[in-house]
């Protein structure tokens, strides 16, 4: 029996029971977001750094709905298109309240939202030197993943498909190669569309998945949050249980001896 309580996700020496990380964007309201997070069982949520609305002082704050003492905030650099912007964002995030565990995401193209890996690599080096624990959004390229690891990344987060596309894992082989070469937490980030995509990621040996749009924009976000929670658990259990070998021909499940 796979004891999932003992099978925690360890990132930068911190243990989490849930292997599902969720984003907090694109929800209809903050209360909807908070409820979906609760149902997903996620212990880490990504958040964005943006200007305070100084003309509307009564606007609700994310921290009023999601308690950073109970849920780990993972500040993200979504929307940054170069190293300078990403570094500025994460230094500010750290200043808000001491956040050192961060998600680096440096985008290279406004349409496909693929990461700019040159800028990402540069930023990882600087942030690691400054004491940040950097989880890095990246392409599903094993060579780049290795370089990130050598630059001090604390987790490798390859995309399944373009951000928000819902296409699911497009390159299973690359994900498996990255899995084989790294002992760092490997977390699929971006592009998942439905719960079974998360199961597939976990069955490939990933340590976790990060989901935002697939839950927030589902017709029933609460049900989808629950579906992803169960899908991640199912995928992990399946992976740990050791699947059968694939064979070309049929192999009967009932004994051939004693057939009447």
């Amino acid at each position: 029996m796979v004891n999932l309580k003992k099978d925690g996700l360890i990132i930068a020496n911190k243990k989490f029971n849930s292997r599902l990380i969720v984003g907090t964007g694109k929800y209809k309201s903050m209360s909807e977001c908070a409820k979906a997070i609760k149902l997903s069982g996620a212990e880490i949520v990504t958040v964005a750094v943006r200007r305070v609305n100084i003309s509307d002082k009564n606007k609700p704050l994310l921290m009023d709905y999601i308690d950073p003492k109970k849920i780990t905030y993972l500040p993200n650099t979504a929307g940054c298109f170069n190293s300078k912007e990403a570094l500025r964002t994460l230094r500010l995030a750290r200043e808000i309240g001491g956040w050192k565990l961060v998600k680096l995401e440096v985008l290279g193209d406004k349409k496909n939202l693929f990461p700019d890996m040159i800028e990402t690599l540069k930023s990882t080096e600087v942030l690691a030197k400054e004491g940040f624990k950097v989880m890095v959004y990246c392409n599903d390229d094993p060579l780049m993943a290795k370089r990130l690891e050598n630059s001090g990344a604390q987790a490798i987060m390859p995309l399944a498909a373009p951000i928000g596309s819902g296409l699911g894992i497009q390159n299973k082989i690359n994900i498996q190669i990255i899995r084989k070469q790294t002992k760092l937490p490997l977390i699929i980030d971006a592009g998942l569309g439905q719960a079974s995509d998360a199961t597939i990621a976990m069955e490939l040996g990933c340590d976790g998945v990060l989901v935002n749009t697939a839950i927030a924009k589902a017709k029933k976000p609460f049900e989808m949050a629950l579906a992803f929670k169960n899908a991640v658990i199912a995928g992990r259990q399946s992976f740990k249980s050791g699947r059968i070998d694939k064979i070309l021909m049929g192999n009967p499940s009932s004994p051939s001896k004693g057939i009447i």
Partner: protein
Amino acid sequence: MKKIKKIKIKINGKIKSIIKDSNLSKVLKNLKIPLNKVAIELNEEIIDKKKINKIKLNKNDKIEIVHFIGGG
């Protein structure tokens, strides 16, 4: 009567008129900024929130006040 001198500064991209020699702490207080939930930049340099009492603002200063919002 002594005339109060005002200066213009930019906060989060918006031009604001403040009393000359105001300190940063007072300006943030007037805006009701919850200090424990934000980070502050003055002219693109991060400010230690413990020191905002001692920072006097000058003409054309640019302040950025950021916080966490929902994101992926």
